[in-house]
């Protein structure tokens, strides 16, 4: 799909959305951004430890795509999944508590930043093996077809997953069996510190879709409406029984690979260019320019979100640690 077409999709999406819808996108992206900023702060204060990969900068991808889903649709994610998890509706309280390693966390403190999970909300997990989630998405897709249910699976992964065998095996299988899976590649140009062009034999990642006989599209991952428009099309196609799609969302992570990475391999000029394209500020500007939002209302939203994050941190702080007596609980179903 040519870029003009996806721009057109974005324009059309904007036209079809009401002010409440746009405010919802704005609020959710802001929630993720503020959540991540607070996570960084808590990390530097030693409240959060271990590996921690922030999603700041990429919010438009999670929000645009997940808002194209119904509640009962599934999401599979990676270790950079705080944004996907929050967008799927999981409470900031229980996500923050998980990052703090507390018993009240979504995974009872056993998972941490990289292994969030909520079966009830069909957030089917963050996985810390690059490409590991794709076969799981295929299996969930298979279970949907098997049970003749109407759901779809939205599977997020990074550009770093493309050279993995799991990517190629999974796309082949999903296409062969016409499974309702939307594969979303978040291309942020770097797999840890290695640039895409040093890792993958072609730079246009969406073109891998051709090999697997499915539609492939590249979207501006800094534009929530463009992501949303493409996701709506792919989700509709999956739900109709027409099989999987691949969306390449071109985006940028504002921070390093993880909290321990200062991203010195990236030119500062490059970072500035992407910061200017910030998805949250862009949407805000657009809503105000096109009279699709009220500044006072947006300021209120910003205050509300800040309060939600404060509450999440307080909840996490006050929550108990998991008891040592449960060290081996849940290794098996008993």
């Amino acid at each position, binding site marked *: 799909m040519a870029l003009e077409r996806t721009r057109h999709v974005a324009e059309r999406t904007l036209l079809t959305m009401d002010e409440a819808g746009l405010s919802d996108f704005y609020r959710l992206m802001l929630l993720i951004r503020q959540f991540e900023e607070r996570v960084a702060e808590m990390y530097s204060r030693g409240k959060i430890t271990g590996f921690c990969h922030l999603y700041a900068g990429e919010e438009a991808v999670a929000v645009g795509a997940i808002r194209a889903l119904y509640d009962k649709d*599934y999401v*599979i994610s990676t270790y950079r999944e705080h944004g996907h998890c929050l967008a799927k509706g999981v409470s900031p309280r229980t996500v923050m508590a998980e990052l703090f390693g507390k018993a009240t*966390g*979504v*995974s*009872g*403190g*056993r*998972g941490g930043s990289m*292994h969030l*999970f*909520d*079966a009830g909300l069909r957030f*089917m*997990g963050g*996985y810390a*093996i690059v490409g*590991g989630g*794709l*076969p*799981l*998405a*295929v*299996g*969930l*897709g*298979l*279970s*949907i077809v*098997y*049970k003749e249910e109407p759901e779809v699976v939205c599977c997020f992964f990074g550009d770093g997953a493309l050279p993995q*065998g*799991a990517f190629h*095996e*999974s796309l*082949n*299988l999903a296409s*062969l069996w016409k499974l309702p899976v939307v594969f979303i590649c978040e291309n942020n140009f770097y797999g840890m510190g290695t640039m895409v062009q040093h890792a993958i034999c072609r730079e246009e990642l969406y073109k891998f879709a051709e090999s697997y006989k499915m539609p492939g599209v590249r979207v501006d991952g800094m534009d929530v409406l463009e992501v949303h428009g493409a996701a709506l099309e792919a989700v509709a196609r999956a739900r109709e029984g027409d099989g999987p799609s691949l969306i390449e969302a071109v985006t940028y992570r504002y921070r390093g690979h993880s909290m321990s990475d200062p991203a010195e391999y990236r030119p500062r000029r490059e970072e500035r260019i992407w910061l200017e394209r910030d998805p949250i500020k862009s949407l805000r500007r657009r809503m105000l320019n096109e009279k699709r939002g009220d500044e006072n209302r947006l300021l209120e939203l910003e205050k509300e979100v800040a309060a939600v994050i404060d509450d999440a941190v307080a909840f996490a702080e006050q929550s108990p640690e998991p008891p040592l007596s449960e060290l081996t*609980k*849940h*290794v*098996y*179903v008993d």
Partner: protein
Amino acid sequence: MAVISYREALNQALREEFDRDERIFIMGEEVGNFGGAFKVTDGLLAAYGAKRVRDTPISELAITGAGVGAAMGGLRPIVELMTINFALLAMDQIVNHAAKMRYMFGGNVRVPLVIRAPQGAGHQLGAQHSQSLEAYFLHCPGLRVAVPATPADAKGLLKSALRQDDPLIFLEHESLYGVKGDVPEGEYLVPLGKSNLLREGKDVTLISYSKCVYDCLQAAEVLENEGIDSELIDLRTLNPLDLGPVVESIKKTGKAVLVYEGWKTGGAGAEVAARIYEAVFDHLDAPIQRVATADAPIAYNARLEHAALPSPAEVVRAVERLV
């Protein structure tokens, strides 16, 4: 009770469980049209259709991961890996995903996946098609491991495997598919984690599983002629591991020989030996003996292959060292 083969017993278990639970399906390379590389799924495609008997391409990682995902989605998948050697291509999904998910997600998910695979040597298939890898799975918390020796256990354990909720590796031995034995018709369950006293004796305890159980039975007959009375325990499953009868037996005999087809170093027998030492050291009259596969890849040459594997003669020699 009918006399049928290990292969037929597995096929029967699959049919009975397919009839009982609509959520059960099988997928794997050649399970449908071909009827299974070892014919375990023979006739299932005709009986249950392509939805429940799904042929797959050669993509062990994705097939296994799809099994994990389908289990998360509420189904009870069986993934057949053509042989256990190919499980190594799927280890990420087995060890990093299936085995971990329940724990790392705080008990909020179940992965009732059964992975069936034949393993074992004895057919001159060379180094890459002759391995016994049960120890790899035994090592990993979160996985159940079944290693049936008899046709009845093959049926009863597979049926139990399909009624529990943890990922389970079901290891069949390639040399056992044609072995015949009494198998109860209809509903017959062998519980996981219950070892089986196959032969009573007072002089020495032989502990084994899968194909080596037959090596032990032969050895026990030879030893009987020498006036040595062997007790034989078939572990049946390595996880859960039921060492109760083993411990009781050693209290009586004071001597133990472990017989298994995995490599000797770091094999399942090493774990069992360590647990025996921890539990009943004071009852042992002699060091525990291990009869296992030589620490080398399996050679194609028949004599080399035979020499690498445990045999009744080696079991006899091990017992003779003890008494």
